[in-house]
């Protein structure tokens, strides 16, 4: 097995433009003590790496870098692990090329 060089997603997100709606996260993770398998999946499946484990082993989200693809909605909304809405009009990622 070859060892993967680490990809820095933060650097990729730095190319993008955002208008952050401070204090109004459009995705919310349901409070939990132990994360569900669906939530744990998001640690790897989110293309913007918005989901992270905190030091208590719970899954947290920071939506500032979200590119609004909807993958976490497809995986986690049905089980109630997350609440998913679109950002308010005009906010969120602003694609220059798309």
């Amino acid at each position, binding site marked *: 097995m070859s060892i*993967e*060089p680490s*990809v820095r*997603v933060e650097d*990729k*997100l730095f*190319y*993008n433009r955002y*208008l952050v709606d401070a204090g109004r996260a459009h995705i919310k993770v349901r409070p939990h003590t132990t994360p569900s398998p669906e939530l744990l*999946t998001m640690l*790897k*499946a989110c*293309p*913007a*790496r918005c989901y992270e484990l905190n030091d208590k082993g719970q899954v947290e989200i920071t939506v500032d870098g979200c*590119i*609004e*693809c*909807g*993958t976490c*909605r*497809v*995986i986690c*909304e*049905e089980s109630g692990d997350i609440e*998913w*809405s*679109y*950002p*308010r*009009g*005009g906010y*969120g*990622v*602003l*694609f*220059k*090329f*798309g």
Partner: protein
Amino acid sequence: MIEEKFDAIVVGAGMAGNAAALTLAQRGLKVLQLERGEYSGSKNVQGAILYADMLEKLIPDFREDAPLERHLVEQRFWMMDDRSHTGLHYRSDDFNEEKPNRYTIIRAQFDKWFSQKVREAGAIVLCETTVTELAQDAYGKVIGVRTDRADGEIHADVVVLAEGVNGLLGTRAGLRERPKPDKVALAVKEMHFLPRETIEARFNLRGDEGMVIEAAGTISRGMTGMGFIYANKECISLGIGCLVADFQRTGETPYGLLDRFKRHPSVAPLIEGSEVKEYAAHLIPEGGFKAIPQLYGEGWVVVGDAAQLNNAIHREGSNLAMTSGRIAAEAIFQVKSRKEPMTAENLSLYKTMLDQSFVIKDLKKYKDMPALMHTQSQNFFLTYPELVSKAMQNFLRVDGTPKVEKEKTTFKSFIKARSWSGLFGDAFRLARAWR
């Protein structure tokens, strides 16, 4: 609250929404189009290839001022293993025609232009407005929408849901299901900028000629997926997508896949020295014919990606979106002309008309392909690409081995990997699904 009542509200300003709003406005209907981005295009992501025929039906002289990148003269299909690709290339000077058939485009720029045409036709386009809910009467009939603006609810005779693959409204109102992980792919994409001359030299292009590469194989690590490389004027769109269910199953990361694709020895020289200016991700409907939801109801129709109208085999989506938007608008216009209400029964005309178009006919033809590709993903995306690469190398490498022995080696490698019944079964299943 906007007191005015509209003939139609179109939710979303992508390909389907713009086609619907334009057609409705051209027919003289009072149309309001709502878009959550700062302009039409700022939230829209695609490869992207534009199919001229479907746009010509909406805007015949689009070539005069649409922001087009390159017209395609060459298509390359690559079957890849970790160190090689086996290619099928088609290039023809016939594609250098007066009215080319396919172009590369950049969606944020193209959609902005498309939206201008919608405004010129007379529709009201309200951007930076997120629709939060459908407004329904006591009987469940859709009578309008609610937005995140202070003036709240807006009414119309019919609502066209062009809200995209991840549309929330239809699901929230119980009109269709949320897309399932095995029915949508997640694609990630980067825009790589290079000088125009460099792109033309690397891809063997002159002037505005363009080419695209569609790639499959070990790049998707046994998942159902594909990579793509599209030449624009001064940049290259490069991306890769796989089924969400496969990401879930394997724990692969989308950016890890993209990175490996970029570092592949067949790809790396094509983007060497480029400057990346954007990183995007988007879902793609992959469920095909069997995933199409209910397309109409009391006071509503659904079009484009929101209706899962995407041909995964031919990589066509935007043209199905445009066509479904136009046909829905034409059906609405016909109902309106007869001065009849926008009931489910009357709006079923949309489905009747769509069934007769290439949109449903093509999706029906490939109705069994998604399931085959998903259940056989290890074979089609890992085993066969590796076998083909070994066979090609064995065929080409000159090392004194008699050709008869070389052929035997290749033949045995296929039997060993898939067995007789496996090979025949795969061929049979593929032929049947393709029929």
